[in-house]
């Protein structure tokens, strides 16, 4: 085990606590015992096997990947950014999966009963691999806000769900990207569960340079995963 690559520990000062009572789904589901520390082995350094062959030609373009009889309703946007490790190293050819509701704030998922229209031309799911610079790029429709049952008059801010592995099972990240200036962020217990001074990392940046002129506004969202530990640790055993 002496020459296993080491990856940086999860930075718990950058993470929400499991129990966040304002988010009403946490009290019955949050683990109550402290996590047991575990030094990763080969098993946690391995990662799912996938490649370019697994990604469909339109998987990154949510404005076209579910079209039946026309273009989806709503404001087209570009969502782009880089996937990096903590050393700033780009993670190349790494999988980025995302899903979101439509422009009216309705998810395709069968259990979403929000009284807002489904869009026959929008699924809201996509995936891509980062390029040689660690950059990903999606075309999609700006998701709407929607009400939820967490507390009276609760509304989720506009958001897009992201799922990544990076290079290891241990660097797995599921998160949500928000939009700059959204007034609902101040009232959202999921966003607010994340520590002050850190939660801002979840907010994308409006990026004129990522805008496709005459077609779609651009938003930039960089994602930082646990990565190679720069500080050598003592060799185990």
């Amino acid at each position, binding site marked *: 085990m002496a020459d296993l690559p080491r990856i940086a520990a999860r930075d718990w000062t950058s993470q*929400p606590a499991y129990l966040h009572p304002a988010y009403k789904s946490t009290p*019955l589901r949050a683990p109550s015992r402290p996590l*047991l520390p575990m030094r990763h082995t080969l098993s946690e350094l391995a990662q799912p096997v996938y490649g370019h062959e697994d990604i469909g030609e339109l998987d990154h373009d949510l404005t076209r990947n579910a079209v039946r009889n026309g273009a989806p309703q709503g404001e087209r946007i570009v969502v782009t950014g880089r996937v990096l490790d903590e050393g700033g190293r780009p993670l190349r050819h790494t999988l980025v999966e995302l899903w979101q509701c439509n422009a009216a704030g309705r998810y395709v998922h069968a259990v979403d009963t929000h009284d807002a229209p489904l869009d026959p031309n929008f699924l809201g799911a996509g995936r891509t691999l980062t390029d040689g610079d660690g950059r990903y790029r999606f075309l999609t429709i700006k998701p709407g806000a929607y009400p939820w049952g967490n507390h009276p008059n609760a509304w989720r801010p506009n958001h897009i769900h992201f799922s990544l592995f990076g290079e290891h099972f241990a660097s797995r990240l599921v998160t949500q990207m928000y939009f700059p200036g959204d007034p609902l962020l101040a009232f959202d217990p999921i966003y607010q569960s994340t520590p002050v001074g850190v939660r801002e990392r979840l907010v994308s940046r409006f990026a004129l340079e990522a805008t496709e002129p005459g077609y779609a506004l651009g938003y930039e969202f960089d994602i*930082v995963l646990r990565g190679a530990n720069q500080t050598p640790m003592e060799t185990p055993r």
Partner: protein
Amino acid sequence: MSEPQAARPGQTPSQTVGPYFAYGLVPTQYGYPFRSLFGAELAEPRTPGLPIVLTGRVLDANGAPIGDAMLEIQHADAHGRHVRTRAEVAETGFRGFGRVGTGTLPGSTYAFRTIKPGATPDGQAPHIDMIVSMRGLLVHAFTRIYFDDEAPANAADPVLASVPAERRDTLIARRADLPGGTVYRFDIRMQGEGETVFFDV
């Protein structure tokens, strides 16, 4: 208004997977018109090793089964090796990684079809890594599954040894040899009596 890029940017915080992940992450299982990249089958009939079904439920603090959880598992092949390339996957049919939601089987059960992993060359007992995600879980939970018919190997496993003896049982899957084949049962208890050990890995 762009922030200056720090030399060492901080980790992106986790957020819950929420209740609506299925059409994005496990669409085929739930019947959505999108092809799943990963599913409940990690192996094919031709894959070397003992075919097994790994099944169970995810339970909340009241012992109620959770029907909107997502489970991801990763493990070594029958020889204790992790697959690394598409060529290796093509050769044996073993994918090494699987993903399911708990929303399609009766009783909110989950079921993976795979092969029993072998002990790994670094001296670990046969094990399966599992990541648990769900609405209400702001950061995914990581756990490990061991096998009740591997007592000698389990007794020598360094990770299992790091777990207080009275809690090790929460990490052991129970074997049943049924007419349809070998089944291992493993429930995940998020909280309370018999709470599953989760690791900070």
